[in-house]
């Protein structure tokens, strides 16, 4: 009964100057969950954009057969009519409309242009039940979390009588429990006869739900594998990077860990709007010179908020707490104070908080330290490109030149630009917030190597991460945060995902 639902043959897509996809084949069986894996830039998203009609017929070479019909989609609407819906990485909901309005947006239940609200609400409720979202259809989308918004997107796809659902990095922004709920839902939808294609970097999730995995690398189909007990994550990674990745983390040389270099004591911060809520509650922590310390926590535990607030009070309302470097108390009242005192914070959100995507690599690297390469406020642009060239070489940033715009770099290269920018401020303390989010496996390894080198040079490094294996793989010591409070501290030797998770789930004291 496993008939073929979708067949893409010989898909080739060229952009000016580059071939994004060459001769890619993809066969998806009806009622399957089919995962597509590959490094960033492998062509996954491009392939899905072709399938969903974002790149219309004629823009690419090759043939799409859906349900044994040759399809020539002219746009998203025509692919939707055939029963294909795509849910993009960035959600496409209107925040100030209600859930019901969003579900039927562009597809309103109307008669002669007049919307039938009763019918809309009833049908929206039915769809919400199907995706397991317990919210009133009249709630504004802005008032629900990202996880629930994802479910609204799926409800919207279901309303269009979808038969093939494409999910591009669906769990990238979700916490563990939301992710699990979403994955369960996808499995559940399979029982209702909906086929899914899922693009994900999270291999453990892929292994949990997918029946089949197709690997793309550099715009080519590498292989298609059936998921069974013999298939290991390492096997998939090998296909993605074209080599055995026996070590996902670089070996850690014996380091000299020095005195306490950086300490935060009794740090408390209130929520910027809801001032009764302590987002960070009396947190004290220490990092020694040459030590890599991790902060684990679920979403909403207050990790990023702690870092932002320590770094120039950039979040919430400061209540109390002190910051020390060595024995000496320092001021981090403003971002410039923090930078001057040798603290650097590389954000989790490169695109919105980390980089000006219109700037060149050189301009991005020098922004916090412009005074260093200026004389009487005049920037020496030659020295600037010299500095940028040095970082391009040492960090192995892949770009045609240092005047390339950061917005056009891959995630891994953007992250290296962000790190270069902070290294150029010559910090003693680096706070790295999700340093490998949205980066492919190979580039992650490089980032880990860089972090190791920093520690070897005697810097105090604080790493915030949602990926527990990553924390265990690179940190010497890990703190766990839960609901704004420090709930545990584990040395690397004793750290397991289970212990950490137990601390991370601990309720408020």
């Amino acid at each position, binding site marked *: 009964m496993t008939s073929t639902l979708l067949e893409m043959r010989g898909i080739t897509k060229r*952009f*000016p*100057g*580059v*071939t*994004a996809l060459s001769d890619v084949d993809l066969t998806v069986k009806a009622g399957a969950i089919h995962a597509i894996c590959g*490094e960033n*830039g492998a062509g996954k998203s491009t392939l899905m954009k072709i399938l969903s009609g974002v790149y219309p017929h004629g823009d690419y070479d090759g043939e799409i057969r859906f349900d044994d019909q040759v399809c020539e989609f002219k746009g998203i609407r025509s692919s939707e009519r055939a029963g294909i819906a795509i849910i993009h990485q960035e959600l496409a909901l209107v925040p100030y409309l209600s859930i019901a309005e969003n579900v039927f947006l562009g597809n309103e239940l109307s008669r002669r242009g007049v919307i039938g609200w009763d019918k809309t609400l009833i049908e929206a409720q039915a769809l919400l039940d199907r995706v397991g979202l317990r919210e009133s259809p009249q709630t504004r989308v802005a008032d629900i979390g990202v996880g629930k918004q994802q479910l609204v997107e799926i409800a919207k796809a279901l309303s269009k009588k979808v038969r093939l659902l494409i999910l591009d990095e669906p769990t990238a922004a979700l916490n563990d429990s939301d992710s699990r709920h979403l994955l369960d839902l996808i499995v559940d939808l399979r029982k209702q006869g909906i086929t899914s294609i899922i693009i994900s970097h999270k291999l453990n999730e892929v292994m949990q739900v997918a029946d089949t995995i197709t690997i793309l690398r*550099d715009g080519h189909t590498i292989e298609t594998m059936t998921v069974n007990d013999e298939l290991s994550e390492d096997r998939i990674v090998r296909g993605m*990077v*074209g*080599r055995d990745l026996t070590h996902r983390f670089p070996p850690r040389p014996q380091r000299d860990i020095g005195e306490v270099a950086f300490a935060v004591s009794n740090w408390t911060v209130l929520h910027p709007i809801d001032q009764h809520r302590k987002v960070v509650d009396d947190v004290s922590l220490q990092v020694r010179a040459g030590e890599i310390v991790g902060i684990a926590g679920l979403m909403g535990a207050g990790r990023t908020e702690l870092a932002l607030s320590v*770094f*120039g009070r*950039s979040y919430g309302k400061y209540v109390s707490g002190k910051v020390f470097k060595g024995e000496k108390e320092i001021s981090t009242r*403003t*971002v*410039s104070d*923090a*930078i001057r005192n040798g603290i650097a*914070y590389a*954000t989790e959100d490169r695109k*919105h*908080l*980390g*980089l*000006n*995507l*219109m*700037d060149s690599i050189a*301009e991005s690297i020098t*922004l*916090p330290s*412009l*005074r260093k390469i*200026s004389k009487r*406020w*005049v*920037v020496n*642009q*030659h*020295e600037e*490109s*010299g500095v940028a060239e040095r970082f391009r070489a040492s960090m*192995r940033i*892949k*770009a*045609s030149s240092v005047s*390339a715009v950061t917005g*056009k*770099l*891959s995630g*891994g*290269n953007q992250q290296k630009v962000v790190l270069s*920018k902070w290294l150029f401020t010559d910090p003693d303390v680096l706070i790295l917030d999700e340093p490998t989010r949205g980066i*492919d496996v*190979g*580039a992650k*390894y*490089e980032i880990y190597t860089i972090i190791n080198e920093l520690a070897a040079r005697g810097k105090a490094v604080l790493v915030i991460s949602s990926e527990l294996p990553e924390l265990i793989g690179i940190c010497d010591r890990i703190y766990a945060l839960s609901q704004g409070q420090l709930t545990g501290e584990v040395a690397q030797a004793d750290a397991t995902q289970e212990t950490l998770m137990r601390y991370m789930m601990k309720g408020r004291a």
Partner: protein
Amino acid sequence: MTTTVEQPSQTPEAQPQSNKPTPPGLRQRVSSFLVSHIRQSGMVVALAAIVLLFQVWTGGILLKPLNVTNIIQQNGYILVLAIGMVIVIISGHIDLSVGSIAGFIGAMSGVLMVRNDMPWLLGVAVCVGIGALIGAWQGFWIAYVGIPSFIVTLGGMLVFRGATQYLLEGQSIAPMPHGLEQVSSGFLPELGANAVYHWPTVILGAVVTVAAVVVQVRRRRSQIRYGQEVSSTAVFVAKCVAIIASLAAFTLLLASYRGVPIVGIILVVLTIVYAFVMRNTVLGRQVYAVGGNSAAARLSGVRNQRVTLLVFVNMGILAAVAGLLFAARLNSATPQAGLNFELEAIAAAFIGGASSSGGVGTVFGAIVGGLVLGVLNNGMSILGIGSDVQQVIKGLVLLAAVGFDVYNRRKGGR
């Protein structure tokens, strides 16, 4: 990834041309140069085309020395505003109040210098100071209180228009002091008499030309010293020859009438200073950073609020300068002075390649944009086209220029 991927050209976004096997030929290099400079060069080419077109249509009147002088004097104040406006726009804001501020400062100058007999130089200083204060006032609400600049300056537009009428009690004040009047309609003083060419202008032109070439040569040298890629010697020489030729032609053109108008000198100085500030100083960089991504700028230690405040203080100063120039040119302070100036200045900045979302734009572009509008105005007036039609055409030019820009960007991105 580096351990596996030997060819760096696998990153598609970063190196669009890298998979071409042979080194690019001259034609490719020229075309890639044009593509990368299209936002800048596109408008310069458009300006040249417009000038040429009107030169033909007006039977050669457009580029007569008298008329070129007119264009400079008629558009001086708009160009001054355009410099300030493009900086405001780069920082991610807008200023609708500059026309009213210019009018208010004009009225102020009349009240101070004519009614109260203040020496005109002191009066100018006081007026510029008031402009700075007005800018600081608006900048405070925008930067520190966080009210959108559109709202604050819309309010300012009404406030200062009303204040102008209040100061002048609906009447005009005239004439302005001779010294101030000369700033707007005067020329570089003559040396000796009755020469064919205006010698001080020729000398000034020669100095500027030499300086421009020296700057070019020095920049190229230091680029070579720091190991950067430079254009070939032939291209460089051609560029220098073009600079010399155009400056020389322009100098002789002005020198064959009454010489360089003082407004022209003020404009050139302001353009060079502001272009330098925006390109080469820490403050200029920070303005681009705040406009491009204010959150990222803040987390990089840029004091966004202070930068924004300074941008508006600067706009206030330039609006005051423009108001003084306009009052000087009319030789009177009138309640209607500065009406719709803000729209011309904003249009100039956008025609010159600024982006309404901030972070993009150049001072030079704004000047070119302002000149496009100025030449259109002047050329159409010579042809006897009514102001109704003129407005329609200018509106369409704005739309076309920005539309072209948006189209280009979309093609450039993906």
